[in-house]
């Protein structure tokens, strides 16, 4: 009976795991196939001789490198921006007393869990007024703050013993020095959590970039990929499309492979918002 149950349990787990990973396997397999092999029955899971032709097509027939660079710049600056603004705000909320503190914090929390689409129209009007439409800055500046990151950092800062700072204060350090010299070095675990969360959020963003830029040279990878699929929709080159998709996922998957535990912890810990 116990054996039977264990067998049932294991086959269920492995069965579902197989279904979960199948789309990724199929994507990579297709990306390595030649045009005739892609449409051949019965299905060939492992290409007879893996070809990188599709990757070449994806990169050369489209400004893929350009999109990649845009994505790296945009995501990188969003990470820096969010970390900068959030560290400062989180420190104030964790450590200082000031008028309106609680009210302001609750107000900030209202930024969680609201569909972006509810504010898209005024947002575009504002970005237009600020001359940020169709600029890389437009893809970055509006996203350099985060309720979630302020919240996570604040929770961490509150647990740091006050004595450490008091000693530094007596030595004449100002607030900025306390943050950079004392708080940040001991906050590495939470900063890496924040880094991972912002990285995945920034890299995968599609909705806002779609609204903010429509010039091809400003496209991020996600926009580029969606565009790549659209222009190919009549007679899709699935091999090249799968190669492009694989490349688009690669950075996130690489981070995941190297620090799976940390990534899962970070996302679970943050309670839902990507």
């Amino acid at each position: 009976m116990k054996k039977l149950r264990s067998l049932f349990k294991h086959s269920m787990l492995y069965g579902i795991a197989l279904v979960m990973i199948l789309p990724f396997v199929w994507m990579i397999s297709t990306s390595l196939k030649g045009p005739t092999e892609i449409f051949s029955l019965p299905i060939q899971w492992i290409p007879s001789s893996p070809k990188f032709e599709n990757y070449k097509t994806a990169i050369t027939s489209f400004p893929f490198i350009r999109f990649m660079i845009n994505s790296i710049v945009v995501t990188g600056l969003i990470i820096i921006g969010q970390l900068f603004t959030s560290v400062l705000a989180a420190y104030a909320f964790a450590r200082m007393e000031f008028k309106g503190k609680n009210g302001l914090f609750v107000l900030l929390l209202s930024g969680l869990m609201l569909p972006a689409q509810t504010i898209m129209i005024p947002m575009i009007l504002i970005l237009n007024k600020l001359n940020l439409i169709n600029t890389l800055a437009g893809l970055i500046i509006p996203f350099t703050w985060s309720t979630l990151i302020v919240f996570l950092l604040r929770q961490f800062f509150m647990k740091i013993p006050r004595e450490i700072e008091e000693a530094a204060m007596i030595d004449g350090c100002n607030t900025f020095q306390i943050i950079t010299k004392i708080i940040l070095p001991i906050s590495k675990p939470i900063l890496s959590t924040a880094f991972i969360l912002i990285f995945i959020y920034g890299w995968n963003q599609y909705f806002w970039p779609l609204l903010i830029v429509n010039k091809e040279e400003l496209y991020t990878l996600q926009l580029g990929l969606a565009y790549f699929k659209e222009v190919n929709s009549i007679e899709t080159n699935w091999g090249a499309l799968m190669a492009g998709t694989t490349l688009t996922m690669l950075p996130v998957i690489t981070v995941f492979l190297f620090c799976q535990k940390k990534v899962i912890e970070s996302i679970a810990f943050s309670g839902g918002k990507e």
Partner: protein
Amino acid sequence: MNKNRLTPYLLIAPTFVLFTIFFLFPLLYSFSLTFVEWNGFAIDKTFVGFSNYMRLFGDEDFINALKNTVTYALLTVPLSVSISLVLSYILDEKVKGFQALKGIFFLPHIVSLVAVGVVWSWIYLPDKYGLLNVILGFFGVEIHQWLHDPDLALISLVIIGVWKSIGYNMVIFIAGLVAIPKSLYEAAEIDGAQGLQRFVYITLPMLKPTIFFVMVSSTIYSLFQIFDIVKVTTDGGPIGRTEMLVTYLYKVGFTNYEMGYASAIAFVLFAITVMITIVQKKFIEES
């Protein structure tokens, strides 16, 4: 002294300036737009009172989008929650390849919705070469059009949604399971409770707050994450069967240029989100 009093405000200033310009102000502005008729370019906006809201009731496309959104959430959330609940219960550290399995289940959650949409369009290919058709054909199922079939398109999206969210929900449930005191299970064992009984009488009740949290957050999440997938796979078709509130709102705003009406739709979405959140808060306060 004066300088010190200002310090906290200076520290929170960058966040709050951005928060105000790119969140608070747009939210209020959006509300004021629901009372006007405006194409987004003209200098003058026409005040129309509540007529944008009244128009919603007679707009078949809106009702269709609302229906699709609710159907999608009602199918995706319970399916995903129940599968991930079972998975979290049976996936313990004694299982061979525990870490790898956890990683595989979680993988779909971290990749972009655009990439997911592209890959699944390929899996759903509506002919004999489509992967899903091949696999189901193995069991004697005939070829289906999936995303192109009016009767199957929404279901096809539900499958993607479930696939994408199982891993995340599972991880949250695992965290909840760990928090259940071992002594409860031991006590139950003395009383003779076994397997399924343990699950029904101890695990489920103890996990209720977590289940509720996951249900609520994935419902809200499903309201807007569906945008990217629909945009990449069906763009609302066939014959409007996968049109969602968020995609319809996008079309009214940026294809028809009816900013007032689009804002009214946006506020319905806003109201739905707020309502779900209030229900969640009430529940958490009670338990």
